[in-house]
């Protein structure tokens, strides 16, 4: 079962929840950090024996001796990654989506592929080998997170428990992370920003037809807006995490939820089973 942990708003506690689910699970689990722009899970899980692999994408390389400067590739490219001014085209790698279209339309066979690195995957073990940790990391200056997320997901075995820590927002990196998930936990906080962005996240998971429930973090701060919204929309609230200064301090040092609130461990251990039994299915 793949449980994705997402939120519209950043900083609501996605990583705290995803790490807690992994630590509390009563079986082997894979934690996949899909927040590849700012991956933080390893700070809390401290994986050992990490090996890394590069994330390579293909970009066009123009053989200028063969190119006739016809500009068919530049006209075709939907991402403006090739520009030709009556010359062999210039390639802008950071705009290229590696779709292969330029190579298909080039009438003279002047385009080949070369690999460029846009990120890195780190694979390690945590909690004496029980938790497999796969972390994707986008190179600074590279713009395209989705290929890194796709490569993270190639490391997820079928039929095992997997927790995906998603990026914030509702745009392409989130859609890429949610694709293939069986269930989504939306983490929010009871503030106007938290509620507003929760509604966007709910619209997104409903658009993708994914079952979901809500985790309210710092549940005793703020106001009743999130509770009232969930009640009105008949959205199940699967967990409420209280605000404690001790939690904020533990988090600041790289501590996890159970360092501050050990009594929450049982609930987080049971969440995968609750989802399986359909208790929390919308």
């Amino acid at each position, binding site marked *: 079962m793949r449980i994705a942990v997402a939120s519209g708003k950043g900083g609501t506690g996605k990583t705290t929840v995803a790490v807690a689910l992994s630590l509390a699970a009563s079986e082997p689990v894979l934690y996949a950090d899909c927040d590849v722009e700012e991956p933080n899970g390893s700070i809390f899980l401290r994986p050992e024996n990490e090996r890394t692999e590069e994330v390579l994408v293909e970009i066009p390389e123009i053989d200028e001796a063969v190119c006739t400067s016809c500009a068919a590739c530049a006209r075709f490219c*939907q991402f403006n990654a090739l520009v030709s001014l009556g010359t062999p085209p210039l390639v802008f790698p950071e705009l290229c989506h590696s779709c292969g279209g330029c190579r298909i339309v080039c009438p003279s066979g002047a385009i080949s592929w070369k690999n460029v690195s846009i990120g890195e995957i780190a694979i390690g073990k945590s909690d004496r080998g029980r938790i497999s940790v796969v972390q994707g990391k986008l190179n600074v200056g590279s713009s395209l997170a989705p290929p890194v997320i796709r490569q993270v997901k190639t490391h997820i075995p079928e039929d095992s428990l997997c927790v995906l820590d998603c990026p914030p927002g509702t745009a392409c990196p989130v859609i890429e992370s949610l694709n293939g998930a069986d269930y989504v936990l939306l983490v929010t906080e009871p503030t106007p920003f938290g509620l507003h962005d929760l509604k966007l996240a709910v619209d997104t998971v409903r658009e993708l037809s994914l079952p979901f429930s809500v985790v309210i973090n710092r549940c005793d701060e703020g106001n009743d807006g999130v509770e009232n919204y969930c009640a009105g929309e008949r959205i199940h609230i699967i967990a409420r995490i209280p605000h404690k200064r001790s939690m904020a301090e533990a988090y600041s040092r790289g501590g996890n939820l159970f360092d501050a609130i050990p009594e929450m461990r049982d609930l987080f251990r049971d969440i995968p089973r609750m989802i399986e039994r359909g208790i929390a299915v919308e």
Partner: protein
Amino acid sequence: MKEIVVISGKGGTGKTSITGCFAALAENAVLADCDVDAADLHMLLAPEVIKKTDFISGHEAVVREDDCTSCGICMEKCKFGAIEVNSEGKYRVDPFGCEGCMVCVEVCPVKAIDFPPNHCGEWYFSHTRFGPMVHAKLGVAQENSGKLVSTVRREATLKAKELGRDLLIVDGPPGIGCPVIASITGATLLVVVTEPTISGKHDMKRVLELANHFSIPAYVIVNKWDINPGMTGEIEADVVNAGAHPIGRIPYDRAFTVSQINGRTLVEETTGAVVENITTIWESVCQKLK
């Protein structure tokens, strides 16, 4: 014209609350919210929308079932795995997987794939009590957030010129990827809001690397600094080592949440030390712009 972009790397560090304060303190500015897939600044500034414009960007492939011969070439050539085939051998494009590259349209031997323009969201020109504002809403599960960010910045810049305003204040998105890069390229300076946690520190370092990559000066605020004073000191040392500049600390204060609930900026909500801190930081930022 000068442009300040507020970013953070990590989400939830207080970007929007601080941008709201800057909006309240600034004179003669135009405001822009470039966090287009989870925009929140409007909740503090209560913009009155003057003009709404559809954001059409890119295209989406759609198979015409009646004309499709089920040859499967589109599926073979699609690099995004966005073409699906059902048990009856009918092909369709998964709209969430499609990146709009047009390869399937090109390779289809019977030209059975349409390629209509994509309605990805909308953007707004609005009035607020602190001046004009340009903001946007990306459609649910839509692509092209980077292009929508570029549109918001371009329109805000045009508005500023038209109205004779000399400063643009931009609330940026979290992360370091496409929408962040679209938010910061060409900016005068960056205000980076972080928090004294290991995650905040880790994410801030990546944002400062990005600032260096694009050669934009960066000034760092440590928000909620008193949650972990030791970490705050470490972060400020890292800031200097990264070639950026600490520009102030803001204590943890429940007034941030209260002001959000009341739909006001913090400087309108309360007085005292936290407001003095922010006002001093704003004055320092203005000095740096000169």
